[in-house]
């Protein structure tokens, strides 16, 4: 890397650029370009010909169709927004709490960590369909995408021999908490990894200074974990929005499958831009308050 004639600053910039290059090329090719195309489609009318797709301008027509011509989109969209509003704080607090407990030394911690990660393994794609299919098919054949919502948990509880009244009570309480708990697997892991990165001497210092546990949590744990809080807020927002079981997503993929690409693209764009604004806002709010060695 030693090149005469390059200042230290420029050399640093060059290395930095080279290191990030493989990733940037990938992100632009596989994510940015498809998204730009989605935007383009949302302003066009597509005609499918034998070997190609013909695009012609349609202005805002698809957007008007999304809001006015389609009765499903707007309610689903608002629904997804409000869901996110209570889901994100709950998931964050819950997963931080669980992570603090799971990252301390006790027997069987790996077992418990695995238990809390199981939902991530199961709820992804085909495995969920298979497990859930086996749970629901016997009862009604009604297959919801997210497994272990009330619907798919019921046959399991029935099989455990509970009475119907008891089940419906349990379901009412458990359903919400349970669903959110299921969505916390990744966040718990990220927090655990973050907690492992907190230098032990900080705890020694606070103990010597006579801080109690509550103070230690806020002064050391919470501060040091703050970069991970940003990670998890962004992850949770994105996960909640792009969840395949989310009504907007279901609607969009249905449209795409019917090759109603333009309308689907318009909805996807509205949806994306909303999330974009939310994430940008979260960043603006949180990034000035997080801990970093570099500053």
């Amino acid at each position: 890397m030693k090149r005469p004639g390059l200042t230290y600053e420029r050399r640093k910039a060059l290395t930095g650029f080279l290191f990030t290059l493989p990733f940037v090329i990938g992100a632009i090719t596989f994510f940015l370009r498809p998204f730009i195309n989605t935007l383009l489609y949302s302003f066009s009318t597509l005609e499918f010909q034998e070997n190609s797709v013909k695009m012609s301008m349609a202005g805002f027509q698809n957007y008007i169709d999304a809001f006015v011509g389609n009765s499903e989109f707007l309610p689903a969209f608002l629904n997804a927004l409000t869901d996110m509003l209570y889901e994100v704080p709950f998931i964050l607090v819950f997963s931080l709490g669980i992570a603090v407990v799971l990252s301390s030394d006790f027997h069987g911690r790996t077992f418990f960590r695995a238990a809390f990660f199981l939902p991530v393994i199961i709820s992804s794609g085909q495995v969920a369909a298979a497990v859930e299919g086996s749970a629901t098919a016997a009862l009604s054949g009604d297959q919801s995408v997210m497994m272990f919502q009330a619907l798919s948990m019921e046959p399991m509880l029935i099989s455990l021999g509970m009475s119907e009244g008891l089940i419906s009570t349990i379901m009412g309480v458990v359903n919400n908490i349970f669903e959110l708990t299921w969505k916390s697997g990744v966040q718990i892991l990220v927090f655990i990894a973050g907690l492992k990165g907190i230098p032990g001497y900080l705890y020694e210092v606070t103990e010597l200074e006579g801080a109690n546990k509550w103070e230690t949590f806020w002064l050391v744990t919470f501060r040091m974990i703050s970069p991970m809080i940003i990670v998890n807020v962004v992850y949770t927002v994105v996960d909640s929005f792009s969840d395949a079981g989310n009504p907007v997503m279901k609607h969009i993929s249905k449209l795409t499958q019917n090759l109603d690409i333009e309308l689907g693209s318009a909805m996807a764009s509205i949806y994306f831009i909303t999330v974009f604004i939310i994430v940008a806002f979260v960043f603006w709010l949180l990034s000035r308050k997080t801990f970093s060695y570099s500053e």
Partner: protein
Amino acid sequence: MKKRGRLSRRRKQSSYGFLIVLLLLGAFMILPFVYAIVQSLKPLEEIMVFPPRFYVVKPTLENYVAMFRSAGGDWIPFGRYVVNSLFVTLAGTFLHVIVALLAAFPLAKMKFRGSKVIFKIITYSLLFSGTVTAFPQYILMANFRMIDSYTALILPSVATPMGAFLLKNFMIQIPDTIMEAARMDGASNYRTLFQIVAPNLKPAVLTLIILVSQGMWNGSNASFVYTEKLKLLPTMLNQIVASGTARIGVGSAAAVFMMILPLIVFVVSQSKIIETMAFSGIKE
């Protein structure tokens, strides 16, 4: 461990109450998994019993045998799907971690012109869900002539922004001083990254490996591949599930089978996540 014995004992006591809650929640997490195992061990006549039972009277391995013998695709042996999935998962995870480490390092530790823009690209690419861009992605793959090859299955996952995003945020936690020390001793950037920074990021890297490998193992990207012998396990599992009630047992067996690898990866990496920084002597 000795040094912090007293401290961890104090923490231990406080968490007993929490442990009960933990046990309850943990039980709920495990139930579906147990249920899948039970279902996979049921003979056909027990699967058809209504209401479904949470236990199995006459456990049998016939579902697993059926899964191995004719796995949906009829003439393609089951092992082929397994090898395909293993290969794609391994290659994808390895490349993803390397690319993410490379990208995260300068973003976290060298403030250079443009680094902020690049990090913004990473963050906002997180939002592009596969569902939304499915159609343009297909067109893209077709243009690159990648359809029906492993490349179409591996490359997009390598470019997934999750890794770079996660690692960058973890790298911030590492003090600049150890890198300065490395540079003083004449280490190149590559050496600093792979021999100084990466080992200290072990919990984060292992977590990333868990996340990426399980995503790749479970993702089918079915629309990118149409040759039967290139297809992955989830596609096969899908075919079984689609074939209805009669194959529920086989479907459960395949689901259990598919959960084995992510679980192994998880347990192995989690048991390797030791308290890196607390014991490796990083002190600011």
